[in-house]
């Protein structure tokens, strides 16, 4: 019995010490432009998907999906999201770095609108995805209604009506 407990404890403690040493000695790769092994990316996306699914409420998007609403969402997207997630109509960039922001116009999204709503509000930790909920007072903060508009737009980005695309293009002077 004593040996059993010893074996149990040793197996719990040694990896923890090893991990600590690995991190403190600088062995961890920190470069974002070095591709991570596929198992790590996959594990992380599984963890994120599962967590978002568990946390997001089931409330359906209270807004409709009229062209006017898609246009309103699209304008918010161009202002606040396109810097990382790319404007629709621009060529797809294939990022080689770790945790690249998805370019929804090309890859779509596997999240539902309530899940997208949750992600915009709370962000995703240890990625570049900001939590709009933490935004203080000024620009960049969204009302719930604006977040729903964004969620609807992102959900439809692979399949936008031409008139919506036309309307959200920046005006040329």
């Amino acid at each position: 019995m004593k040996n059993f407990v010893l074996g149990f404890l040793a197996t719990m403690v040694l990896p923890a010490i090893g991990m600590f040493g690995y991190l403190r000695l600088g062995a961890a790769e920190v470069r974002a432009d070095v591709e991570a092994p596929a198992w790590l990316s996959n594990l992380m996306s599984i963890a994120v998907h599962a967590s978002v699914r568990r946390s997001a409420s089931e409330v359906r998007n209270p807004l409709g999906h009229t062209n006017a609403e898609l246009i309103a969402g699209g304008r918010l997207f161009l202002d606040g999201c396109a810097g990382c997630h790319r404007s629709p109509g621009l060529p797809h960039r294939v990022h080689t770095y770790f945790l690249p922001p998805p370019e929804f116009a090309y890859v779509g999204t596997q999240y539902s609108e309530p899940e997208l709503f949750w992600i915009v509000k709370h962000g995703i930790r240890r990625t570049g995805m900001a939590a709009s909920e933490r935004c203080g007072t000024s620009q960049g903060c969204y009302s719930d209604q604006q977040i729903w508009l964004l969620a609807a737009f992102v959900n439809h980005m692979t399949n936008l009506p031409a008139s919506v695309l036309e309307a959200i293009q920046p005006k040329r002077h």
Partner: protein
Amino acid sequence: MKNFLAGSLCAIALVTITLAISIGLGFMDVAADEEPSAWESGLMTSAVHASVRKRAPTMHNPLPNSDATLIAGGRLYVDDCVGCHGAPGQPPSEFGATLYPRAPQFPRIGSQYSDAQIVWIARHGIRMSGMYPHFTYSESQLWSLAAFIARIRNLPPAVVKAIQSPASK
């Protein structure tokens, strides 16, 4: 010895099952609006520092130590970094505070990295943070940026003035 191995296997099974459940069923919290715990911040920050120290080259900034260098770097900083890292003389970036980990506010806290390390970080980015790699800058642009960030809490007034002028494009 047989019992020792049995205990060890038990521990491995327990950890594997716990991890599988928390990852698969979504118990790993991914919300970025909660405050990072002190131990997590401490451990991750020291891991990044250690890794950067180990990998980044050690060399001096090859650019002349002049106001012109600082101004060139400052203009790049104002164009591309202030959104997350905050501008000199301004309140901290609100957007930087919406990321997890929070973006360091250099005008307040400065940087503990050398110029060469700053160049290395700007080019390669930092994994598992919002710091993405910057491929488009030339070597000398990055060195001027590093010179600026390294002195951001202690800038000559002429530099501050020059980078704030609207004609800085």
